């Protein structure tokens, strides 16, 4: 008898329908064959399915069993076909009687354990979103990951603990209660950032630079001696970025669902992602890859922050590979199995020491590097990447004891919440400015837009001219300065760029 079970395959962030056809023949030698370009994990499903069925108290029919994963020319790589195969074997061998019309509206997805329980499986959200497009769908997914799909409306989500429970449900002996749908709430205040700005001692200028970076979508580079709070500052950035809208949250969750990074029980990701890959990361790890390409760090940082600590330590080709995503907001991974496009629109925050030993400019420690070593260290970051960094800020050593005892004059201790309000305001001004343009933040302006949309007062322009002469700015840094000044003016709510906005922007000019 032949049975057809519905499931899906995820290729990148795209989902296609896969029919798991199971045939238990009445004649022929006993055997279990899987066809339809299965991967190694699917080949091995034979043993899992067989053992899980037996251990759940069912009979594994001693017949010729053939499984076809259609479409046959699409390579499949997922352990999620265990469940549809097991259900198919049961139905085809007459141990489970269901009408084929019922099965058409059911999606089965999940990895089996040898004792018949279902294990967490990645890509559940994508299954939910796919099932949503068909009327009256029910999805049967592993209990530990079922929550992922609860943000999808219009489908019935059945969390399945084990095979026996599922069969009882299908035989209508014991019904599984479907999960309730969860609304994506727009509550932003309940989110607590990893680090609050007010927790970081001193570094007022770096904090200000973070706020400017968040407000204008600028990339930021911090440089300073070890232990001055560069990493902490970077971690505070997600907390001052405007909250994810529900569409954005879904977009981020999709990527994490494909990567299998959603923790069991978690529904939707509301925090802006913060990714801090180590400098030993491979190119595939950074931009995405593998024989069936999974999203890399740049995509996992989509709509969030990509933090590169010790930036000069990253191999040059890895840094170079960031150029495409930084330019286009997406990354294309080409492999034998086809090419896949992942979104990758992130804010880059980089940190570097001033010199190889790290102590250049420290008030008490002595730097042991020669000028040549320092020059070589600084040359390691490629020019094109540096060109895409708008803000440069020094994070100098802070004397902790001094900070703790200082006078009450430190009244400018800004909290993340206050900073976020400023950022949201500045972003609102920008979205108004860029209506009908395909850009959203000041950092995305091209020279054409800078000329058209950034109004400088004559004094500010004079100041800029003076600076260009003094520091020998290139044309690119010239426009970069105007963009930063524009964001500062937005933060202050000014229509025109005043001289003091320009003067402050000069504080964040390229220094290395």
């Amino acid at each position, binding site marked *: 008898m032949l049975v057809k079970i519905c499931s899906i395959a995820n290729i990148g962030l795209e989902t296609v329908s896969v029919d798991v056809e199971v045939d238990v023949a009445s004649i022929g030698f006993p055997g279990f064959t899987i066809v339809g370009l299965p991967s190694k994990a699917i080949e091995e499903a034979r043993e899992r399915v067989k053992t899980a069925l037996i251990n759940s108290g069912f009979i594994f029919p001693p017949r010729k069993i053939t499984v076809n994963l259609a479409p046959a020319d699409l390579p499949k790589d997922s352990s999620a076909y265990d469940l549809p195969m097991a259900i198919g074997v049961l139905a085809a061998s007459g141990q489970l009687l269901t009408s084929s019309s019922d099965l058409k509206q059911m999606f089965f997805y999940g990895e089996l354990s040898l004792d018949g329980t279902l294990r967490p499986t990645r890509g559940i959200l994508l299954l939910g979103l796919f099932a949503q497009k068909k009327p009256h769908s029910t999805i049967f997914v592993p209990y530990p990951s079922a929550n992922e799909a609860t943000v999808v409306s219009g489908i019935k989500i059945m969390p399945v603990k084990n095979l026996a429970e599922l069969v009882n449900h299908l035989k209508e002996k014991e019904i599984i209660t479907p999960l309730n749908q969860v609304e994506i709430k727009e509550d932003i205040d309940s989110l607590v950032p990893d680090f609050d700005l007010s927790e970081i001692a*001193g*570094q*007022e*200028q*770096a*904090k*200000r630079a973070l706020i400017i970076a968040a407000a204008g979508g600028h990339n930021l580079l911090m440089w*300073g001696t070890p232990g001055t709070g560069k990493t902490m500052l970077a971690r505070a950035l997600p907390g001052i970025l405007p909250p994810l809208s529900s569409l954005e949250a879904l977009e981020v969750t999709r990527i994490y669902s494909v990567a299998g990074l959603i923790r069991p029980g978690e529904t939707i990701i509301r925090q802006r992602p913060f990714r801090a890959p180590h400098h030993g990361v491979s190119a595939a790890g950074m931009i995405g890859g593998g024989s069936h390409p999974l999203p890399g760090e740049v995509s996992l940082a989509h709509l969030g922050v990509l933090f590169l600590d010790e930036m000069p330590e990253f191999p040059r080709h890895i840094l170079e590979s960031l150029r495409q995503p930084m330019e286009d907001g997406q990354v294309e991974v080409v492999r034998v199995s086809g090419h896949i496009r992942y979104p990758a629109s992130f804010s880059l925050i980089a940190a570097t020491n*001033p010199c190889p030993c790290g102590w*250049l*400019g420290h008030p008490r420690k*002595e*730097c*042991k590097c*020669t*000028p*040549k070593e320092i*020059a070589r260290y600084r040359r390691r970051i490629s020019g094109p990447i540096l060109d895409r960094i708008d803000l440069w800020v*020094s994070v*100098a050593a*802070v004397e902790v004891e001094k900070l703790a005892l*200082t006078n009450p*004059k*430190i*009244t*400018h201790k800004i909290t993340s919440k206050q900073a976020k309000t400023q950022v949201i305001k500045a972003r609102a001004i920008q979205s108004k400015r860029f209506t009908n343009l395909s850009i959203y933040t000041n950092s995305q302006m091209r020279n054409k837009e800078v000329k058209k949309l950034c109004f400088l007062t004559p004094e500010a322009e004079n*100041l800029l001219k*003076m*600076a260009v002469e*003094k520091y020998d700015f290139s044309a690119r840094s010239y426009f970069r300065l105007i963009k930063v000044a524009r964001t*500062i003016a937005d933060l202050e709510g000014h229509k025109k760029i005043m*001289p*003091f*906005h320009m*003067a*402050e922007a*000069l*504080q964040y000019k390229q*220094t290395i």
Partner: protein
Amino acid sequence: MKYQKITGWQKRPELSGLSDLTTPPKELYFVGKWQKEIFKNCVAVVGSRRMTEYGRRVIEKIIPQLVSQGQTIISGFMYGVDQYAHQVCLESGGKTIAILGWGINLKLEGFDLKLAQKVIKAEGLLLSEWENQQPSCWTFPARNRLVAALSKKIIVIEAAEKSGSLITTRIAAKLKREIWSVPGPITSRLSVGTNNLIAFGKAKMYLGDFSSFQTRLIKKTDPLINLLENDVLTANEIARKLGQPVSQVGAQLSLLTLEGQLTEKEGKYYLKNVS
């Protein structure tokens, strides 16, 4: 770079200083345009390779003064104090002689090459007693004896306890040259050598020209300038001390830097010396 050999340097009066040496150089090579006037008033400025911020400021303060007195700055063309002394001398329009610790025919690269070209363009000289000698641990002390012999005065800026600059002063003492040492903070490793020279009476204390302090007294108005009078500070520290938001202080710092009142190095601000 095109170099020439000086034939019979012993006969040249401008190089008579070298005859004072117990082991005078056998040969001399140079790059540049030979003008005997530049040997007339020579002062050697020597110091550590690992120059600190303090050393940098000392050079920026005293070299322009020396240049305005018409002195030629002699130094050893090594990175750190030596090269910065050459550089500041050129920036303030002075002439400088760079005595190399290696053969004159060796190829220079990067910053070294650029600086050498500037030295020659400003009618200075590159000088060496070797043609093809590779730099080695003994070539630098050998070079130092030429530095000492050619100058009338020697100023040491930043030297550790065992510094090559102290070799120069020892030779200079034998040659009866005037030795000056710039005192430094007693907490700094790189000031032990210079402070010792003063403490043991081997050098006179060099304090530069006092007049520059007085000129500034007149325009003491800005509280920010007042703060930087005695200290080198970062924007954060200035903001904290003035009790103003850092955005405002930053804008002010940028303006003052553009006006040329302040200088910024590695995120720290200091007053530009008025000389």
